[in-house]
């Protein structure tokens, strides 16, 4: 079978090939080449299903940076397999859809490269066993999401949304990295499997690590109060929204929570935080979804809300770990099971809905529900898909959403009946909030279907006559809609082959035999079913009277919203950092030199003092010859003369005299390499000087106050003195073993007679390599600063 490591690398390789392929094949067909990747990976991963269902797991190792315990290790178990299948499965459908959705005028090569980057990164996230590798892939998903949101980068909204998404998720990513480092400190291992075994819940860092990890998960999965980035991310092309911002990337946070449940889950804070943040998000998302007029924004809020639902179920389920095996535990294992089930269901119905919205946008030219209506007869297939998707999301039978929604209700109700972690307030609060949120969910689901497809058709409000999408665009949503219905009728196929093995990864300490009931559509008239019926009745009534109570949305003033907080804090941060930067970036080379020299004095002089290295011994020194004395005198004279120079040419010449005498020194000391280098450097820099010379401002006598002059004098003398001390002390102290043995044997070790070059090219080649790269970056920096100044026209584009 295909190794998992290879599966992660394949999308990246494909992304490299696309630019080469792009010029060769017609623009319409590039998508079909891309399609091969997710389909092949999906099939390859699907072949693992039978063995994973038997409880098998696959660990493959690949050393990367062993000295830091960082290995490219992948671990395939039930949990990662579900995500892997979602990523590749939905990925395939999204690629098919995008082939028809994006016109060939767009820069398709960029689009598919970003998409493949994302796919590879996401697979990396779910399969990595090493924390650092996990982190790298995690941030890579944020970056590819940034690139995809800003795909139409000429739009201001797109750039705003992309930046917001990046800032939020990367902030969370850094919190997560901090948490990973704490975990490493606690357990001494980077492997997630080993961490589960080694973690000590009483360690001082346990709770901080947990909180920071959750910040990472909540930002990524758009949980309250970090959810604000997701609606703005909807500026991305619809296939991207369907793929990243509903089916896969936003679920990475949920994956993180699920993956680390065995590590932190037994702690009370974890249970509380995850479940209540989930419940709040569930309510806030669905409540805000109802007020949206843009169908995509509506779906964004609904995604937030549904993610909250899954999150809260994982939170509730984590209690199973502290309960141990027992009759009561079944409630919690069942919650985890429901979480996984709803996770898959959400991907199917939400994916279908996003694609339908894209079709509506494509066919009618708008996504605004105030302009849409009566599309049922014009777009019958889309209508059917939207109906299936929405009703499933609302939790109605016979669709898969009904099953997982019932299980959700059951979980919150039974949690309130048992006394875990001293639940008192939440006895009523959890089920009540969940129920209210579901009512709103029901309302916005009805809005999606009825406001778009029923009611009067308003052709005068549309740019062009609405029409059904081409068949190619319908393939993917139809497949998803079939899954939505199919899972309802055969839920246990999914349950037995995918969800149960995943349970073993989330709750490894429990014997799961008999702890998970098979999913059934009919389970008698229990509280959950009554709640669903209540949701339908109240939801219908509220939907019909929506005009009467819409006023509550204007109760919260604009300036109190989280969006406003985000915008204002960005402005403030920019202002503060601007002030801070302009405080020391004066624009004068003089100031910068002072900073550098002061740092030099502190760092080198400080080291000299602290290590006590200033012991001198002149006994073994060679006698000083006449040449040396003469050269030193010349240099001193030149050095003293530079500050007194009357014109700039004099100063440059004197500086040259210093440089060339230095070269002569190298000659006297028999270092021809250095002498040559010094000569050439001197020559080139004089040429540079000549180039700039003509454009430099007039040479003026410096009129600085006495104090500044005195300070500068002190600094320069200190720098000189420290240099002298260092030069004298070099031979005095030996802090570590000498490495000159390498250089003495250069001919045997590196095959070169010129020691200087064996040092540069072989012994210290790493330094040289980095220097070349730094030089290159510096060169590019000069080039971009001078050449690529934004023209006025580009400025205009920027402000669009």
């Amino acid at each position, binding site marked *: 079978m295909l190794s998992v490591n290879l599966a992660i690398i394949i999308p990246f390789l494909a992304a490299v090939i696309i630019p080469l392929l792009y010029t060769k094949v017609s623009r319409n067909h590039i998508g079909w080449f891309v399609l091969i990747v997710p389909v092949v990976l999906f099939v390859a991963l699907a072949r693992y299903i039978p063995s994973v269902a038997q409880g098998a797991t696959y660990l493959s190792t690949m050393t990367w940076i062993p000295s830091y315990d960082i290995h490219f290790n992948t671990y395939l178990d039930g949990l990662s397999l579900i995500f892997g299948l979602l990523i590749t499965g939905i990925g395939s459908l999204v690629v098919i859809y995008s082939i028809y959705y994006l016109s060939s005028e767009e820069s398709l090569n960029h689009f598919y490269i970003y998409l493949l980057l994302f796919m590879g990164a996401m697979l990396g996230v779910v399969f990595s066993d090493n924390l650092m590798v996990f982190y790298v892939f995690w941030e890579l998903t944020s970056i590819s999401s940034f690139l995809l949101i800003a795909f139409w980068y000429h739009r201001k909204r797109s750039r705003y949304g992309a930046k917001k998404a990046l800032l939020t998720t990367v902030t969370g990513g850094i919190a997560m990295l901090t948490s990973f480092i704490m975990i490493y400190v606690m357990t001494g291992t980077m492997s997630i499997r080993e961490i589960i075994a080694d973690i000590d819940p009483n360690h001082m860092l346990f709770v901080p690590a947990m909180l920071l990890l959750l910040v990472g998960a909540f930002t990524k999965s758009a949980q309250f109060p970090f959810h604000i980035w997701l609606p703005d991310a909807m500026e991305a092309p619809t296939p991207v929204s369907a793929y990243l911002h509903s089916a896969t990337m936003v679920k990475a946070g949920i994956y993180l929570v699920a993956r680390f449940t065995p590590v932190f889950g037994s702690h009370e804070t974890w249970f509380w935080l995850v479940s209540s943040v989930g419940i709040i998000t569930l309510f806030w998302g669905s409540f805000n979804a109802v007020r949206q007029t843009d169908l995509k924004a509506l779906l964004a809020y609904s995604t937030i809300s549904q993610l909250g639902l899954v999150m809260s179920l994982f939170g509730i389920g984590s209690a199973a770990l502290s309960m141990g095996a027992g009759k009561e535990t079944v409630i919690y294992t069942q919650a985890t099971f429901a979480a996984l089930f709803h996770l898959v269901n959400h991907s199917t119905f939400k994916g279908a809905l996003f694609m339908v919205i894209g079709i509506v946008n494509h066919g009618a030219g708008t996504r605004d529900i105030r302009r849409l209506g009566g599309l049922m007869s014009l777009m019958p297939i889309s209508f059917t898909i939207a109906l299936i998707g929405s009703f499933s999301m609302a939790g109605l039978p016979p669709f898969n959403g009904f099953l997982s929604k019932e299980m959700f209700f059951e979980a919150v109700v039974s949690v309130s009946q048992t006394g875990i972690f001293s639940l008192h307030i939440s006895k009523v609060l959890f089920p009540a909030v969940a129920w209210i949120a579901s009512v709103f969910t029901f309302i916005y689901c009805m809005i999606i279907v009825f406001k778009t497809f029923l009611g009067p058709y308003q052709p005068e409000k549309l740019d062009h006559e609405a029409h059904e999408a081409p068949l190619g665009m319908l393939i993917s949503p139809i497949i998803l809609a079939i899954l939505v219905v199919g899972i309802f009728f055969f839920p246990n196929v999914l349950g037995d082959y995918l969800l149960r093995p995943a349970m073993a990864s989330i709750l490894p300490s429990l014997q799961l035999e008999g702890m998970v009931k098979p999913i059934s559509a009919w389970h008698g008239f229990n509280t959950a079913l009554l709640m669903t019926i209540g949701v339908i009745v109240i939801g219908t009534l509220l939907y019909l009277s929506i005009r009467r109570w819409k006023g509550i949305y204007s109760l919260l003033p604009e300036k109190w919203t989280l969006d406003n907080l985000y915008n204002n804090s960005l402005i403030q941060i920019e202002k503060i950092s601007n002030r801070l930067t302009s405080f020391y970036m004066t624009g004068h080379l003089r100031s910068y030199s002072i900073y550098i020299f002061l740092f030099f004095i502190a760092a080198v002089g400080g080291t000299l003092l602290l290590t006590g290295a200033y012991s001198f011994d002149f006994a073994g020194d060679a006698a000083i010859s006449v040449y040396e004395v003469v050269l030193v005198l010349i240099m001193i004279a030149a050095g003293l003369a530079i500050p007194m120079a009357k014109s700039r040419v004099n100063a440059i010449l004197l500086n040259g005299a210093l440089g060339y005498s230095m070269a002569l020194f190298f000659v006297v000391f028999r270092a021809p390499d250095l002498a040559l280098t010094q000569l*050439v*450097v001197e020559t080139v820099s004089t040429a540079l000087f000549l180039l700039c010379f003509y454009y430099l401002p007039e040479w003026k006598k410096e009129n600085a106050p006495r104090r500044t002059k005195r300070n500068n004098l002190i600094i320069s003398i200190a720098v000189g003195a420290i240099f002298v001390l260092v030069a004298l002390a070099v031979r005095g102290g030996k802090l570590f073993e000498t490495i000159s043995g390498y250089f003495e044997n250069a001919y045997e070790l590196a*095959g070169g*007679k*010129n020691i200087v070059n*064996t040092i540069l090219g072989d012994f210290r080649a790493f330094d040289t*390599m980095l220097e070349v790269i730094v030089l290159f970056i510096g*060169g590019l920096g000069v080039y971009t600063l001078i050449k690529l100044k934004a023209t006025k026209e580009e400025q205009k584009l920027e402000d669009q």
Partner: protein
Amino acid sequence: MKINDVILQTVTKIVVFIILTMAVYLFVSGHNSPGGGFIGGLVLASALVLLFLAFDTETIMKRIPLDFKMVAAVGAFITVATGAASLFLDIPFLSHAYSYVNLPVFGKTGLATVTIFELGVALGVVGVVVTIILSISEDV
């Protein structure tokens, strides 16, 4: 501003070849006697700078249609790539190899992978120096 610099141009035409020969010599001899990629590259760059000073940049760029940013990039790439090559042989990053070969004209010659590395250094230096000088001189 038109300056009559016949002397400079005539001298340059001859001197450039001497400098270029010198640059190649320095580069090749680097392993066993003074020289090497850095100096070789710098001398080569100074030859180009001399050309730019003696004639105007447009004339020279027409004759040497090289994008020096690309030259620098290729140089940086080569230095990294020679280092990475050793990874494929499962030996530490940037390990070098050398051996002696009897070539027809040159006799016993040392061949070392470090030469490729130095080539990268040289190209990087030439590319960067010329890019900087060209950007500054063309800006004004």
